């Protein structure tokens, strides 16, 4: 593949790439339409973040990676993240290199594979949901992503099936010139229960690059879905990630999001509480360093009666990093007895670090409860003094306070392995 990707991508190019990968015709035309749309749509405009000044053209070229036969062939940084995984999908750069679903899970009718394979093997199922939560025509980013996504994950859990062990995905890229754009589609049928965990990382720096990814979750009536997703992309990479869940009656989602990248980030997570009694819990933790700029948005949109949302974001900003943290609770007319709560807190560790917490409540219904809290501040010197007065060094005192600040998010993570992993990654970035 020698054609340099232009921005916006040409329709013919997207279609040609799709055909060359042997994708079904419906997907080829979806990509073509999306590419066409990308030409006329605008970039998203996150609050107080001028992403149009970022280098958003470095989408990379498609490169088909070589399949792996086992995790042992993974680079160490990637392998440690999936140690002990049962069900696993691994993507390197533009394509899937490993996938595995234990027999006992496939026997229950669970589908867990890369999205390209699923589009070919389960077209009706994929077509029914793909780009229904995140529409391809929302903005230039969603259109480009629809035209260019690669690899990805399709997770389908049939009605009444409950899975106790997390299903894991790993997305890594070790060549900055290669397109890296996973799309994750999760469908949990009525009264099913599933936990999905993924990690995205880049290895070895390189030229400017853009990682764009989307997670779409459909939780049908009574389904419970846990999604934990940790991104640690390099300083040369811009991470543009959109996550969205659509919840039917009594469905529940729990998001755990670790934005631990070293480059610029737009991270946008939204739960659409369509069904009565649906609920969403979102916990976001982030550490910024260097000259990183981040826009982290969490949202909940309530349509259902008695729907419930809770959002917590904790961010630590080091050096000259800056973060704009938005929480948007929207309660639509008719969503009586809905409850939406949000907290955003930023801790700044240097005088040049910047944090901005914007809690937004948009409420069009009277009979609801909603609350928000936000704070931006530095490590409290009284607290440091108190800890030091017991003999703890200044560094250790600050460390305790910082980890204490992050604890409300970290301790809530339901899966021990994910919590420990996140804790380690936090330490690595905090102590770098």
């Amino acid at each position, binding site marked *: 593949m020698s054609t340099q990707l232009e921005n916006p991508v040409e329709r013919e190019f997207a279609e040609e790439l799709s055909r060359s990968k042997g994708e079904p015709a419906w997907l080829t035309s979806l990509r073509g339409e999306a590419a066409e749309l990308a030409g006329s749509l605008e970039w998203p405009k996150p609050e107080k973040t001028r992403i149009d000044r970022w280098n958003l053209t470095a989408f990379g070229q498609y490169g088909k990676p070589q399949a792996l036969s086992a995790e042992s062939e993974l680079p160490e940084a990637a392998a440690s993240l999936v140690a002990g995984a049962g069900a696993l999908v691994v993507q390197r750069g533009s394509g899937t290199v490993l996938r595995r679903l234990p027999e006992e899970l496939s026997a229950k009718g669970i589908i867990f594979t890369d999205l390209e394979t699923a589009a070919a093997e389960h077209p009706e199922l994929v077509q029914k949901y793909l780009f229904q939560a995140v529409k391809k025509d929302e903005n230039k980013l969603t259109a480009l992503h629809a035209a260019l996504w690669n690899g990805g994950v399709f997770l389908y859990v049939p009605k009444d099936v409950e899975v106790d062990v997390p299903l894991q995905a790993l997305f890594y890229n070790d060549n900055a010139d290669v397109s890296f754009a996973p799309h994750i589609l999760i469908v949990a049928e009525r009264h099913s229960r599933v936990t999905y965990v993924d990690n995205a990382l880049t290895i070895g720096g390189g030229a400017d690059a853009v990682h764009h990814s989307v997670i779409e979750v459909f939780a049908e009536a009574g389904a419970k879905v846990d999604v934990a997703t940790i991104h640690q992309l390099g300083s040369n990479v811009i991470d543009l990630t959109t996550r969205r869940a659509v919840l039917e009656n009594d469905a529940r989602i729990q998001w755990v999001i670790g934005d631990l990248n070293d480059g610029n980030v737009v991270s946008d997570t939204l739960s659409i509480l369509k069904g009565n009694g649906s609920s969403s819990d979102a916990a976001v933790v982030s550490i910024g360093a260097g000259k990183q700029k981040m826009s982290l948005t969490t949202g909940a949109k309530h349509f259902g009666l008695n729907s419930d949302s809770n959002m917590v974001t904790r961010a630590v900003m080091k050096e000259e990093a800056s973060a704009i943290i938005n929480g948007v609770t929207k309660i639509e007319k008719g969503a009586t007895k809905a409850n939406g709560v949000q907290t955003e807190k930023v801790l700044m560790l240097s005088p040049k670090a910047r944090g901005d917490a914007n809690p937004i409540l948009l409420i069009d219904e009277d009979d609801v409860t909603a609350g928000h809290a936000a704070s931006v501040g530095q490590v409290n010197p009284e607290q440091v003094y*108190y*800890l030091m007065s017991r003999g703890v060094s200044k560094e250790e005192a600050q460390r305790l306070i910082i980890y204490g600040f992050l604890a409300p998010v970290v301790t809530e993570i339901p899966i021990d392995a994910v919590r420990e992993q996140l804790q380690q990654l936090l330490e690595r970035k905090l102590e770098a």
Partner: protein
Amino acid sequence: MATQFTIEGLKAEIEGKEILKGLSLSMKGGEIHAIMGPNGTGKSTLASALMGHPKYEVTGGSAELNGEDLLEMGVDERARAGLFLAMQYPSEISGVTNSDFLRSAINARREEGNEISLIKFIRQMEGKMKELEMNPEFAHRYLNEGFSGGEKKRNEILQMMLLDPKVVILDEIDSGLDIDALKIVAQGVNAMRADDRAFLIITHYQRLLNYIKPDFVHVMMQGRIVKSGGPELAERLEAEGYDWVKNELGIVDETVGQA
């Protein structure tokens, strides 16, 4: 070595206002000293300046613990040298459990590689918590967060017990305590009395001194010690107030640094 704590001519100011105006005091291991005085005479400033609170600036004098110059040390070094201050208003620290913090504090006094084992630590902490009649769940609560006034004070005493200091300063440990809690706290302090440990109790009520018997009582006014005596001095202050001291010394306004 017998503990010797010596303060000489200590001067300290906050935001440019001089509060301590040359305070001298000498304490030996095994002794309990009480500093009494009306509000605004510099008692808590003495405690904070000795511990090294960042808002207080020492402008003169010295404070030595067993010959080591405390004022040259950072706050943490003073603590490791053996100074302990039970604070009047302990900080609340979210996300840090009481037990994690205490273990860090104990390990800060030990060589790397010689950290206290978790089992031993838990056994020690649970034992002391029992003595102080603290609910065991406080070990897992975030440090002082949501603690009542009395619970915070007990938690200060718990820390003192586990850290085994040489010089203990109790800054108004009796404020906000009901009589039962006061007795428990006093028991904790009395249990810690030892030949190599000195106590400095800062209070403006005689009440606490009914439960912790001081060897020496000092009256503080205008940022220095103006009168010293034995336990009978505290009793007279309780009975007669401070006016007779002021009259005797010709002091009109006992406070210091008040706007």
